[in-house]
């Protein structure tokens, strides 16, 4: 291992320009992937924010005793899809309407009788905020005898559904394309490094080096270059994120795990790219 490490470091020292060039290439390839990741991530977060507003409202028949509703609330909260369920009494519904509908304040004040029904407002857990789940929960709410009507803005939820699906597909396709381009560029860069040392590889074989011995420093070097490129790419992405936040919009950055995944991706591509290039080279010579 000692020798492998020394050979790998020596290779950096002997060809500093080519090494720097390949690290830079890897870094920028991954930076493009990172930038796209940032866009996808923020788009996803915004869509999630919007989805958080998905809400089902079940209107309660007038005269239903509070105990009945309270008991039902416990049942509803136990639904796996449900994040929270709250009771809105007739009075608080009116108070809310007064606050929100300022234009009708006078009308609302002069009412003799409160026309607004009490309701149960149900919020769903993330992952259940799509048309199918919302409809299912709505149907179950309708099953309660005291429920008059259930509303959840079907059109809106369906539109949101479609938008999320499109975003996911586009993200996947474009992301895969970016990743593929990064892999090709990084693979080519590593192949250049291998070819540059083909003479050395031939001499190694001549003096009786095993393929494993020849391969190991390349793998180590490739993985290290990939890792370094990944770290630089995350750094560049962070710089981009900071300037976007300062000049354009409030955005989110990768979580620690996501940043680690980019570095890991670089390391794996570096490693596999080297394994492939050296393997092919060793087979050919």
């Amino acid at each position, binding site marked *: 291992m000692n020798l492998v490490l020394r050979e790998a470091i020596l290779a950096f020292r002997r060809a500093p320009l080519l090494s720097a060039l390949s690290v830079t290439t890897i870094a920028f390839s991954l930076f493009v992937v990172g930038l796209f990741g940032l866009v996808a991530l923020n788009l996803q977060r915004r869509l999630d924010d919007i989805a958080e507003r998905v809400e089902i409202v079940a209107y309660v028949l007038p005269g239903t005793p509070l105990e009945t509703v309270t008991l039902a609330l416990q049942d509803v909260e136990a639904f796996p899809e449900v994040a929270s369920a709250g009771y809105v009494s007739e009075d608080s519904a009116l108070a809310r309407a007064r606050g929100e509908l300022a234009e009708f304040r006078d009308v609302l004040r002069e009412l003799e009788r409160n026309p607004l029904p009490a309701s149960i407002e149900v919020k769903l857990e993330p992952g259940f905020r799509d048309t199918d789940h919302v409809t299912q929960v709505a149907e179950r709410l309708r099953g309660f005898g005291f429920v008059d009507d259930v509303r959840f803005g079907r059109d809106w939820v369906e539109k949101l559904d479609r938008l999320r699906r499109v975003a996911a597909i586009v993200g996947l396709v474009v992301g895969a394309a970016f990743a593929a381009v990064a892999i090709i560029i990084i693979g080519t860069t590593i192949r250049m490094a291998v070819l540059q040392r083909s003479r050395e590889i031939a*001499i190694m074989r001549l003096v009786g080096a095993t393929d494993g011995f020849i391969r190991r420093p390349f793998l180590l070097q490739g993985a290290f270059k990939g890792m370094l490129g990944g770290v630089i790419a995350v750094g560049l992405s962070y710089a981009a994120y900071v300037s976007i936040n300062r000049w354009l919009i409030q955005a989110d950055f990768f979580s620690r795990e996501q940043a680690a995944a980019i570095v890991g991706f670089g390391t794996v591509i570096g490693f596999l790219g080297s394994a492939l290039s050296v393997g092919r080279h060793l087979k050919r010579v």
Partner: protein
Amino acid sequence: MIKFEHVFKSFPKGGLALKDVSFHVAKGEFVFLTGHSGAGKSTVLKLIYADERPTGGEVRVSGFPAGDLPARDVPQLRRRLGVVFQDFRLLEDRTAEENVAFALEVTGARRGQIPPRVMRVLTQVGLAAKAQAYPRELSGGEQQRVAIARALVNEPTVLLADEPTGNLDERATRGVFQLLRDINASGTAVLMATHDLDIVRQAPYRIIELQDGAVVYDSTVDEPRDRAAGP
């Protein structure tokens, strides 16, 4: 030590390179492999160090079936051989000492053993004083000595030399050839491919001559002939 039995070699695009080549090289023998360029000298050497495989016949080297040795066993065979070339094939970015040490490192020799063994062979080839020099700082003859030191450091039983003096002036040629003779005198078999008849004439060693891929003369079997006439 080296045994060729009815060896044929053809290349997919190059026609027949060797035709029914048979010869034995005994332990400690010195053999010249002569012939014009393209006669098949390098192919014979490549078959010995398993860089090429025969298309027919049998090649055995130091007990290894070199002809059909599994790829993973090839390094083991090469560690028993030393090979030197016309173009030296040194690593340009390593010193003479590092070039020689490299051959030991790849075989997994103990680290502590490496420097004394390297210095011993560098001394043997007369380059102890230039251990720290890079190939570009050495003359052709000196570079070939480093290459020979590298070939010797694993204490091979056979030294293969492919036109080792082809790039050298007369003085350096004489020096390198004398070095090969000394190595042979200490018990290592030497198989030297050359088309330099002056060298061949200098020493009373066995000659195997190739022509168009076939052995046309072997001084141990055929009638002695005027060495000066040569191939």
